[in-house]
């Protein structure tokens, strides 16, 4: 019993191969009228549904009919005077297609095998030390970049009661301590992360100045972050 699953027909060649297999036809001596009839009844189905995909099938149907007609005519001959079988090109295409169809099965098998394997799933627990100074990376960060990231922070800081006048007690020394706390030896912190919760412009400004101060003192290194507008601070450990 043949349960036809249409998903398996990837096109007219596939359908022809199916007929050949199903009816155990000789691929080198395809009964062209028979197979054309089978094929056309299938195409009729597709056309009935008025589908765009019918195009490839209709093209093949006309090829088949053309072959059918040529079969009835006296055979053409090639350069060497040998008769040309009107089906030759079709057979060649079918065999070539069949070849890749077989490789498709091989790929499906490899796919199944590989699906039985899983790669490691979660990597975040790995401790990754900030690399020592790599010139290439540091070169990418200029004071201008720093200013730009700073400006972006000012633009994107949480909107709150910005106009409310309050006196904010914050000193550069305090912010140096604050930054030092945030970057214990070996760890790094992103600038945006550092100032994320600061609602007052002045606090961010002071933090930024503190940061520059620490760079000058050699307590702090800066490097490019994956996010191009941000940068990372890391301790140079001698502070």
């Amino acid at each position, binding site marked *: 019993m043949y349960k036809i699953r249409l998903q398996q027909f990837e096109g007219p060649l596939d359908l022809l191969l199916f007929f050949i297999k199903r009816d155990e036809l000789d691929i080198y001596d395809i009964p062209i009228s028979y197979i054309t009839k089978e094929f056309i009844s299938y195409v009729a189905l597709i056309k009935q549904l008025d589908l765009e995909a019918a195009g490839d099938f209709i093209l093949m149907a006309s090829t088949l009919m053309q072959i059918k007609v040529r079969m009835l005519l006296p055979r053409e001959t090639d350069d060497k005077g040998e008769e040309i079988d009107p089906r030759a090109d079709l057979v060649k295409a079918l065999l070539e297609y069949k070849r890749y169809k077989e490789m498709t099965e091989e790929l499906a098998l490899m796919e199944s095998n590989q699906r039985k394997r899983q790669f490691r799933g979660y990597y975040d627990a*790995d401790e990754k030390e900030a690399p020592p100074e790599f010139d290439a990376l540091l070169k*990418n960060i200029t004071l201008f970049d720093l200013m730009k990231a700073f400006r972006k922070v000012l633009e994107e800081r949480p909107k709150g009661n910005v106009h409310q006048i309050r006196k904010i007690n914050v000193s550069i020394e305090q912010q140096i301590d604050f930054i030092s706390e945030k970057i214990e030896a070996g760890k790094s912190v992103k600038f945006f992360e550092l100032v994320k919760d600061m609602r007052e412009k002045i606090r961010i400004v002071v933090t930024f100045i503190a940061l520059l101060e620490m760079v000058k003192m050699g307590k702090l290194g800066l490097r490019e972050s994956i996010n191009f507008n941000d940068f990372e601070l890391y301790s140079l450990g001698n502070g």
Partner: protein
Amino acid sequence: MTSNFTAWEMDKIYFNIIESLIFAADEPISASEITKAIKDIDGEDIDINNKDVDDTVNQLNERYKESESSYEIVRIANGYSYATKPEFSKYLGYLSTEKSKRRLSQAALETLAIIAYKQPITKPEIETLRGVNSDYMINTLLEKNLITIKGRAETIGRPLLYSTTEEFLKYFGLNNLEDLPKPREIEEIMKDADFIEQRNRIMMNALEEQLENEVDIEDMEEEDDENAVE
């Protein structure tokens, strides 16, 4: 005489299953998720509880310690996860840096694409297309030698013009700029992808139904044929 736990402990297979679950999980996985996974697959009556899982994790770590593995299982965020030991952190840090250096960020790629297709182009034009300030992107691309400055535009202010470099062609395996995929070609490949998929699904369902009906009839006819042959 043997307690349930000991009986279970003998069952080497769960030792490995727990190991592989922690290894492959996308997030730290909890003891109860592990017992649930095992019970769902092997049956509710499998005698394993969260304590067993935790004991197994200890035993696994013992094993890793003995064999001087470079990793171990850590307990974080209410779950277990593998972690490489901290002494290797500088090598791993190096690797991740290498990777981020290699990767062109989406924004950089966007900028590069605009320059590639619209060259020579000025910064204001790039920024109009992207809708954002592109100084940083342009600088990065200049530094990576993927773009270069090709004179100045004749417009007001005579802004700099940017073009792609030989390096750019090499990076993308192109012989020359004409080899860049044309927007028309991209569109041809991308056209109506969703529509085609939808349509295929509908077509397949409809055709399958119809053919199955026909096949039933054909089957009967074929059976007749076979009978005739035999």
